[in-house]
């Protein structure tokens, strides 16, 4: 099995926050895409505190940590089921934003690294990181159609006037 899992922890955009002083900490949102509906997940940070990942408005599993270092954070992603906890991923995430919470990285756990981390290469974990962002494309195509419609009307108007002026 080439790839057991691919997790996406992504930024959420939270506007209107003041940038903290340079040596202070920041708030991050961890998001898990494509999680199976019947499974429960939580994220643990190195200090031992945990946040459960629960569906947000966009049906993406999400949890928020307050006050983490500005450059990186050690995390463990845990799946909670009837036999206990399964560590799906652990490692370091680089942070790229200190004023809006950001955790932007992708990590592929294949068999080799699963063993190295003593993580079960759980076949049940098929996180759909490669999901096509259909909503964004639909929005873009809608905008493109709107622009085309406006310009189309202009061009038709131009063609009618050109013909009239030409015949006159």
């Amino acid at each position: 099995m080439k790839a057991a899992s691919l997790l996406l922890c992504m930024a959420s955009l939270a506007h209107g926050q003041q940038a903290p002083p340079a040596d202070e900490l920041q708030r991050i949102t961890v998001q898990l895409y494509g999680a199976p509906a019947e499974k429960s997940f939580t994220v643990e940070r190195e200090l031992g505190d945990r946040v459960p990942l629960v569906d947000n408005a966009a049906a993406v599993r999400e949890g928020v940590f307050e006050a983490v270092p500005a450059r990186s954070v050690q995390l463990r992603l845990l799946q909670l089921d009837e036999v206990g906890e399964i560590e799906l991923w652990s490692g370091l995430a680089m942070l790229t934003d200190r004023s809006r919470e950001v955790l932007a990285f992708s990590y592929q756990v294949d068999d080799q690294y699963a063993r190295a981390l003593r993580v079960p290469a759980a076949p049940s974990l098929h996180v759909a990181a490669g999901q096509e962002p259909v909503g964004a494309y639909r929005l873009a195509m809608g905008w493109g159609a709107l622009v085309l419609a406006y310009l189309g009307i202009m061009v038709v108007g131009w063609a009618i006037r050109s013909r009239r002026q030409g015949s006159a």
Partner: protein
Amino acid sequence: MSSPAPGPSAARRWLHGPRGTALVALFFVLVATAFTWPAARLDPHTLVTRHFDLYVTIWLVEQAIDGLPRLLATGSAWPHGESLVRVDSYLLMLLAWLGRGLLSGWLLTTLVTWLGPALNAIAAEHCARRVLAVERPWSLMAGLAFGFSGIAATAVLEGHVYFLLAAWLPLLLTTAWTGPAHGLPWVRGLLVGLLWSLSLLSSAYLGVLATALLITALAARPQRVLRLLPGAALVALPIAAWYLWVFSMNRHHATLELKPELVLSMGTATVATLTTWTAQLDTLRHSVGSPVGFTTLWLLLFAPLVLRSERGWRALALLALVALLFTFGRSFRLTDTSGGLPSPLALLVSMPGAAMFRFPVRFAWLFQLCGGLVAAATLQALARRLPVAALLPVLGLALVDAILGVGLPFRARQALADVPSAYQAAPEGRPVLDCFGRSLDSTSGELEMWTRNLGCYYQAHHGRPILELCLRTEVVSPRESIDAGLGDALLSHRGADDPEMLEALRGWLAEEGVGSVALHADFYTPTDRALMISGLEHLLGPPIAESHDGGERVVLFPGASQAQAQ
């Protein structure tokens, strides 16, 4: 007696006069402020970017001050230093060298990020007026398309800010297209040569694009352009010869392309990435995409209908479409995961020495320039028969394309610019060994590049030499080897309890000349972190400094020779 109200001709004169030009420049600066926000805040604690290359770009700029004349950076790859013969942008380094004492690496790159798109837009707007005789305000269309494009956003997000020094392209096209003026072909020729050289020195890719523009101008206006070539060659040939000579020097310093397929895949466009931006594009594809802007695209496609009786635009439209096809690289694909139709560019990409074509998405610069020019001409042609009030909203649509369609303000991140203060306790003139630990993420190399570039960025501020190689992307650096060796030894079964191993490690570090060891504690798991700190204390003695600023915890230990002396 009141003066008569200004008529259309007076307003037109005003719009095309110096005040109109100032107004256009102000407009583009305002758009650039929104486009690259918060770069305009010039906050010294903030870097506006998303990925890791801005760190090393700033390091490169700082190296230029001492390293440019000898093309050798002494801050990295201690003790020999690192050759600068194959840097991405000699022009950015030259600007840093000229502005030494006034412009720090942070300030120069932030100014280029903020004002580069505005200057590109101003140059493209000027080009539209001179090349296709597009009047204001319709010429703004060309500026919006070229200055605030998806490919410009990629340059900001990736940290390749030297690509924003692209104003030479429209200026080159203008100078070549309009040909010799006032009987001074030599002067114009020299100017063409200078602009071509500036494009090449900004980035090799821009040099290729400038050549494509010159060839197009030559094909469209052979009589005019031919008269410029002798003068142009006088400037361009020596620069090109120097460039080739420098590039051919130290071939062994060339970047090893161990993952050309990965680079090519990431460096190409798909229909999806030309359409819009997504979170996935920024997370998985390094923000490499180029939403072309529907207003530009539709106006370009309407050009054959609207401009059929006009002259001069066809060559530019053809170049725009060819450039757009080239952005797809080897195959035309709808999305990353879909199959594709083979492209003729596949032959070019597979040629030896054609590594630079492995980022074909950069041909989008040509599309945005030429497509924007033709779009502006189309808009003007529509305005001759239609009310101005009906067409002015089209400029608004182009503005929406630039801000929302490209989405840079929503995609850019504010990275911390501060540097851990613990470095200040490191002995001057002796190399610092940065320990980030061994990464398990070797599948993508992302974490290695983050740590490598962070170490180089820190070096630009603390000034002590480092063992890291800052300009390579695929070579295992001496810093990584020693870091991994040290970590493996101290985290092994006996770890710091083995006196023979500790002695061997001290000898190794002393042999490498390490003056201090900076442990980046946050990069280790809690267990490994405790073992590393206690292990390094056994090995080198107590820490000489510890800081919790600069976004991370850094524990600084003395070098092996100091530990032995103690």
